[in-house]
């Protein structure tokens, strides 16, 4: 096969991929060394620079219409390692840069460094791990070697877990420990599969693997172990047990990062594995199993979200449900002789769902943080009148909810519509029914928040300290992006087609 080998020659502008990873890494090292107030300053400096890199990567992809590739140490795989950005990677890089930047601005009030020479625990840990998570996600989105991706997952785990227990309460420590155990099991499984792949094919490079892999017992076991590990990390039903206490217990800005970005990393690697390293897997019944787990997540997460008495656990269960839709990509993109246009529609649907959920969920957790601070609690029963006290935040929550429900014109609508259409074209109507049922459940739990917020308070609310307008503006901006993704999809389709394995591997096998 000459085509994949050609596709992975280094390209001009490939050094941008190195910068996308190393800029936040350099930030982390400087933060750790200089400490104190510098931790926050460095984070705020890296944000625009990292965003500029993500924009440059995206622009290069759109301009050339080809993926960016870089060979580290000027050494080609299989001996060396390469980085590669296709359209999906670039979109995820942009999403990460924008959300990290927005949550960084939002978190300045929560994690302000006290003046004076003494360093404070929570701000220092938060600002350092913010950049650490960014670099970890960049490795996950750009790495082209399974072991490099394993290291990326480790960075992600050790960046995410301490954020859960940042406030030091005993229950959040328990949640963090449970998350750590799930994540470490996931890492071990991923590593075991990686070893098996090397033993069978003598390379860990995804492009080379794509040309060499063939479905046999060893490969099946390797993929099964890696997928199981990744599902534990991304919290797909029934491995979701760790997610609600962890995401609901963390401080609001940390919850926003964990729920919008961190869980997307392992999902992205399942896609890399199933579409990239071992194309053809989606034709197998195993893809239906992934879809079925996704369905379980949509229904189970939705029903439990309806039953939560508090706002943050409700939003966390909503994440469990929304992650389920992502796994409909696998059964829908398979099947012999499926036209490239359908595969591409499924690919786009999955990517847009990942991105629009990221923006919507970041907005919701940040908004929930503002409401919690204003009211002093986040009981849903006590939300009456919040719409008057915090109109912008309530409006943002409603907008983000639109995207979660999948109502037009939101990004969530576009994603779910693409998935529903594909399920009808491929005569798998049950997935369409699932998407509609999931939308109803989402409508129910969003209504539980918005309805009391818009009603008049039974008794006058206690004097609510007005949160800084800028913080509300950040929440609104995040929610707006999740909606606008449905209005301007055309550029997205072009970007997502660049280097997409959904249309690259339709060669008959």
């Amino acid at each position, binding site marked *: 096969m000459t085509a994949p080998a050609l596709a992975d020659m280094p390209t001009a502008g490939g050094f941008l991929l190195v910068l996308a990873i190393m800029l936040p890494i350099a930030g982390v090292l400087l933060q750790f*060394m200089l400490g104190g107030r510098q931790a926050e300053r460095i984070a705020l400096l890296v944000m625009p620079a990292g965003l500029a890199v993500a924009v440059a990567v995206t622009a290069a992809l759109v301009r050339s219409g080809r993926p960016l590739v870089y060979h580290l140490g000027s050494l080609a795989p299989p001996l060396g390692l390469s980085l590669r950005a296709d359209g999906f990677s670039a979109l995820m890089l942009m999403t990460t840069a924008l959300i990290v930047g927005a949550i960084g601005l939002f978190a300045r009030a929560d994690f302000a460094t006290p003046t004076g020479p003494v360093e404070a625990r929570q701000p220092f840990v938060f600002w350092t791990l913010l950049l650490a998570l960014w670099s970890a996600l960049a490795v996950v989105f750009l790495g082209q070697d399974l072991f490099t991706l394993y290291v990326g997952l480790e960075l992600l785990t*050790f960046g995410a877990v301490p954020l859960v227990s940042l406030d030091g309460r005993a229950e959040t420590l328990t949640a963090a420990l449970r998350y750590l155990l799930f994540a470490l099991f996931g890492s071990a499984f991923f590593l075991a599969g990686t070893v098996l792949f090397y033993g069978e094919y*003598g390379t860990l490079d995804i492009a080379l693997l794509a040309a060499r892999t063939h479905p046999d017992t060893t490969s099946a076991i390797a993929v099964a172990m890696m997928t199981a590990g990744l599902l534990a990390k991304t919290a797909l039903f029934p491995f979701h047990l760790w997610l609600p206490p962890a995401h609901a217990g963390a401080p609001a800005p940390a919850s926003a990062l964990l729920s919008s970005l961190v869980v997307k990393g392992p999902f992205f690697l399942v896609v890399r594995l199933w579409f990239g390293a071992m194309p053809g897997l989606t034709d197998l019944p195993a893809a239906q199993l992934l879809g079925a787990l996704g369905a379980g997540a949509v229904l189970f997460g939705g029903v439990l979200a309806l039953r939560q008495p508090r706002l943050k656990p409700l939003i966390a269960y909503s994440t469990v449900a929304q992650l389920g839709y992502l796994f409909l990509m696998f059964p829908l993109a398979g099947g012999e002789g499926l036209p490239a246009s359908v595969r591409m529609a499924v690919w786009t649907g999955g990517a847009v769902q990942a991105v629009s959920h990221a923006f919507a969920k970041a907005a919701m957790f940040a908004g929930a943080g503002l409401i919690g601070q204003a009211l002093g609690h986040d009981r849903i029963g006590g939300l009456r009148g919040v719409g008057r006290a915090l109109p912008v935040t309530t409006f943002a929550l409603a907008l983000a909810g639109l995207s979660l429900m999948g109502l037009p014109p939101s990004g969530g609508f576009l994603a779910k519509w693409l998935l529903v259409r594909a399920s009808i074209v491929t005569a798998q109507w049950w997935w369409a029914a699932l998407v509609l049922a999931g939308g109803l459940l989402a409508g129910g739990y969003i209504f539980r928040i918005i309805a009391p917020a818009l009603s008049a308070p039974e008794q006058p609310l206690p004097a609510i300290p007005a949160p800084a307008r800028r913080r509300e503006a950040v929440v609104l901006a995040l929610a707006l992006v999740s909606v606008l993704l449905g209005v301007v999809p055309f550029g997205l389709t072009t970007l997502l087609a660049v280097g997409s394995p959904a249309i690259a591997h339709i060669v008959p096998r």
Partner: protein
Amino acid sequence: MTIGLLLDFFLVILALAAGWWTIGAKDSFGAAVAFVAYGLVLALIWVRIAAPDVALTEAAIGSGLTGGMLIAASTRLESARQATRAGSVTRRLAIALSALVAAAPALAVLGLPDPPPSLATAAMAALPSTGLGNPVTGVLLAYRAVDTLLEKVVLILALLGTWSLAPDRLWGGLPGRKERRNAASPLTLLGQVLPPIGIVIGLHILWVGADEPGGAFQGGTILAAMGMLAVMAGLVDVPATSRRWLRLLVVAGPGLFLIVGLAGFVIAGGFLAYPAGFAKPLILVVEVVLTLSVAAILLLLLAGPPEREPPR
């Protein structure tokens, strides 16, 4: 039947027995001790399958450092020693899952091609360009340098995560409790006698790593162990975690690695590329600093989160 085969058989039995002992131990302390033994048997097995670099790492990290951490944790959790036994359903599920997890890779390994495809020849062929003699060091610091760099950042994050468990008011303080110095204790004698020898061995392992089995991680672990011995004997104290020089020591290794990598853009035409003829000296410098950082990080990880007031 050759002696080698008999030895292999014996090691496998030992490994299984040590594994069984670890799982079946009555309390967490016993399990930790058994785990150390298990790690040592594994190290011997690595030697038998001609992977001395892995054997050194297994002995130093898998057995030594992890064992030390587990023992320290189990003495801390004095009250939880007699851990509550899980219910019979949970236990059966755990056994079934463990059996599955053990059986699946075993089945997969049986299906591997023989001889397996390998990059070993390619790794040896490219070695002259690095000036190194040990292909493992070539993989770690040249071919897959970025993995090594990122792994060191993972270590720093692990340290930060450990520190983050401290109460707010102790942030920046001294880790652990102050050990009392007791001149009559055998630990004091060990703490005085062993470190000079251990430091020489650690530096030797670092130095020969370029051409023989060894390297930054193994060397750094031995240095950390010597430091820990001196701390446990009460001869020295762990510095406060807010100390600027300590923070610098922790990031110096990955920091220098990153600088050398970025300099590669200018002097060698690519990130983490080394200019022809300068690869070995650059790698050695990076390894020396990495060793010091690894030693500092591991020592601090063993010492745990700050438990004493920061210096004013």
